[in-house]
């Protein structure tokens, strides 16, 4: 009786062994899927919905002030616009030229944090999308672009009295940053109710910084 069970079991083991070998034999002939260098559309969409591609203006201002060596700002607007005003240390890669081989080395790297910016977020996001499609790493977007940069860093608005301490801390930081970037004088005042009215004389600064940004 016991022998019969053992024999049956052995038969089953032989069957399973042969079956497994047959299935795994097929895998030898399964062609490898190549050309996966690019990112999948589904993944791209997921990343697009994800807010982690953004850096806020405060984060970028802090990085510039701290002279973070890993930061690489990339201005995707036209050279004329960049001439007028650009962020300190930024390089100018107009979005039309983003695929030029000249820039490949700057864009496809694993060391620096590339942050794209334009006036708003549209062009910078387009640039980011193209770069992500190429599956280059470390690409981000300045949230709100230069418009946001002006309204938060260059001319920060004082928080209303009902807001918490954090809002005040942020404001204090922005006032300091505003000074650093040569922003409106009004923002320097300690009176938190006063909103800055003067437009910053930033153009002068821009020319000087552009030279820095080239390297």
């Amino acid at each position: 009786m016991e022998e019969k069970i053992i024999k049956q079991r052995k038969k089953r083991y032989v069957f399973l062994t042969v079956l497994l070998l047959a299935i795994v034999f097929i895998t030898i002939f399964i062609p490898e899927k190549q050309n996966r260098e690019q990112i999948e559309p589904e993944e791209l969409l997921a990343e697009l919905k994800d807010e982690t591609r953004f850096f806020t203006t405060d984060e970028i201002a802090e990085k510039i002030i701290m002279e973070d060596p890993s930061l690489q700002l990339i201005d995707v607007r036209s050279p004329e616009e960049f001439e007028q005003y650009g962020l300190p240390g930024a390089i100018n890669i107009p979005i039309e030229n983003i695929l030029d081989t000249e820039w490949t080395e700057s864009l496809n790297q694993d060391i620096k944090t590339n942050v794209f910016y334009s006036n708003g977020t549209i062009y910078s996001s387009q640039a980011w999308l193209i770069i992500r499609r190429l599956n280059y790493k470390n690409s981000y977007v300045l949230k709100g672009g230069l418009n946001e940069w002006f309204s938060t860093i260059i001319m920060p608005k004082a928080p209303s009295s009902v807001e918490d301490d954090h809002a005040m801390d942020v404001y204090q930081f922005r006032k300091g940053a505003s000074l650093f970037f040569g922003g409106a004088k009004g923002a320097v005042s300690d009176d938190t109710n006063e909103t800055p009215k003067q437009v910053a004389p930033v153009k002068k600064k821009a020319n000087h910084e552009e030279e820095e940004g080239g390297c």
Partner: protein
Amino acid sequence: MGPLIKLGAIDAGWELLIALLIGIAFGFVLEQAGFSSSRKLVGLFYGYDFVVLKVFFTGAIVAAIGLVFFNYFGWINLDRIFVNPTYLWPTLVGSALMGLGFVVGGFCPGTSACAAAIGKIDAMVFLGGIFIGIMIFAFGYPLFEEFYKSGAQGRVLVHEYLGISRGLFLFILTTVALGIFWLSVGVQRKNHHKNLKY
């Protein structure tokens, strides 16, 4: 289509809950398979019970074959799944330590949690040991760091390293596994203790 969470089919917020459910199911199956018994687990080292080897090796092979087919059908993108980066020397030392702990303590980390859950005191002591070990590693990390990061090779896949196709490697691996299974039957028969209670 997959990996589901990475491609956004499932929101990342569910990750922990899914992990918890899979963990519970895994623990349940381990316990059902008798893996909360030290005698069964260390049978592998003494050569009288090879169930552990068979179960885990079978699991790995079935998953591997399934993934290759899924990849072919486009249900999962194998290039997108996470692969543990290889650190050669720490891995070798770590696996030797793990094996030693396995044969001395009579559990592997997962099964010790299972056995502790059904009230085995030795497993609870084993778990305590795990936590002490974690503490030592965590607080002594500066001491270990250099070794911990040595031999970094990044994402290494065996079939790419050998320069053969994925399917061929899988075929060789499966053949080896089946060979070991058949060999283990003979070894087990030789070392079988009739009145061993699990």
